[in-house]
């Protein structure tokens, strides 16, 4: 019963968006810039903007997140301070995204003077998904059996050799899964990009990381509430593309996970 209560609304949302959005999808919609004050044309700049932002976020969050996870799981001692740090990171994942948006505005846009730009937006999204990347990577590292580490060390390998050759390769599926889930979250969020990067209407593509850009979630917000008389088809088409993008990333994460789980040898 409770399951039905959850599944039915979610199913309805997906069905309605597909039903109303799919007819809008054609090559022109995907590859053209918005025209007539966003009442016609396509959403190409928003798609590209979202891809830039997501790529930027991951370039920032993956290395830092992975290094933090390696430190926390392999090097840090089990003391109260480190336990608090781990707990704090898990809790950071639950901070509302608009708070990250304000943080990004204060730090990157104003303090570092990056302005409203792809750089600011990427860094803000990166910080937002950092807790997800750290937590999932840490779990992936810790799920590698302790006995493998002991065997490797007992053969004269150093601690870092053990991490690089034994622990990391066996944790990669989990790390990838977490990263892609983080990406899905970054692609769908409106609030963090609202103040840091998103352009209301910018029909040409960004030329550098210091340019503003359009992004799918914000574009959807704009054409749904800020611009009168936008054709329903365009709104639902945009929602469909966004939904498809996020679901696609989650699907990739699931495929990677099942594929490696089958290959798992212990």
């Amino acid at each position, binding site marked *: 019963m409770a399951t039905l209560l959850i599944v039915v609304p979610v199913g309805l949302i997906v069905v309605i968006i597909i039903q109303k959005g799919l007819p809008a999808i054609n090559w022109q919609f995907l590859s053209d810039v918005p025209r007539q004050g966003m009442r016609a044309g396509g959403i190409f700049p928003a798609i590209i903007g979202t891809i830039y932002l997501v790529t930027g976020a991951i370039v920032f969050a993956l290395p830092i997140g992975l290094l933090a996870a390696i430190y926390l799981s392999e090097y840090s001692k089990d003391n109260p301070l480190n336990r608090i740090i781990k707990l704090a990171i898990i809790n950071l994942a639950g901070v509302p995204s608009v708070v990250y948006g304000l943080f990004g505005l204060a730090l990157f846009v104003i303090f570092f003077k990056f302005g409203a730009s792809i750089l600011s937006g990427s860094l803000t999204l990166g910080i937002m998904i950092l807790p997800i990347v750290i937590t999932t990577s840490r779990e992936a590292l810790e799920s590698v059996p302790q006995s493998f580490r002991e065997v490797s*060390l007992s053969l004269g390998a150093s601690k870092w050799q053990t991490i690089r050759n034994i622990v990391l390769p066996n944790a990669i599926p989990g790390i990838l899964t977490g990263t892609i889930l983080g990406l899905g979250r970054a692609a769908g969020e409106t609030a963090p990009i609202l103040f840091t990067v998103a352009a209301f209407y910018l029909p040409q593509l960004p030329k550098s990381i210091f340019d503003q850009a359009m992004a799918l979630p914000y574009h959807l917000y704009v054409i749904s509430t800020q611009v009168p008389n936008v054709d329903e088809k365009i709104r639902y088409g945009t929602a469909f593309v966004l939904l498809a993008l996020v679901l696609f990333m989650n699907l990739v994460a699931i495929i990677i996970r099942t594929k490696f789980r089958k290959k798992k040898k212990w």
Partner: protein
Amino acid sequence: MVIFDIKNLNIWFDSTQALKNVTMQVLPHEILSIIGPSNSGKTTFLRILNRLNDLNARFKMNGDVWFNGQDIKKVDVELLRRKVGMVFALPLPLPLSIFDNVAYGMKMAGVNSRKRLAQVVENALKQAYLWEEVKDRLGESAFKLSGGQQQRLCIARTLAVEPDVILFDEPCSGLDPISTAKVEDAMVKLKEKYTIVLVTNNVKQAARVGDRTAFFLSGELIELDKTEKIFTVPQDKRTDGYIRGKFG
């Protein structure tokens, strides 16, 4: 000459004392068996010798352990572990191919020449009596081998690093009698080249392969003598009781 010289060794994990004032020696080219009931400190003692207890944050020790005349607290730990190899209780292949499992230690020590590695792997597998069974499938995952083969692979992997001493931690606890016999054969041949310390729950195994046998009880070394003596005229009543199966 003495391989390991252990004096007044005390070990704690937090406030629990795991070894109490152990003093003993390990001599070259012998098989030293260590017997005793579970929780008597056998494995803890073994893991002192290659400093694997260091991984446990709750571990504390005092007393002296000398390896070839050097204090093990002061030698480079990676070098020590290369000289003192270990075979674990369960077959624990690394998630790599058969070849890479055996070559792992050498690679980590910085040996990169494929020719040299191939030679090391072949020699080690021959010494562990596994070469004939796996020579045509060295590229396969080590997990495809049977349990007994995996354990001999682990022995080969330890030999490949060219240690002086090999520590066996109940190496046959997961094996059937035939695989056990093969591993025991390998051990007896290996003592010509190496010094072996064998922890075992199987008293008969200690009687079969050990030159000397040590009996541990609740963290104390009760008795250490030639295997024949331990099994025929033990000095301590508790040793006698244990090997006759009265407790444990």
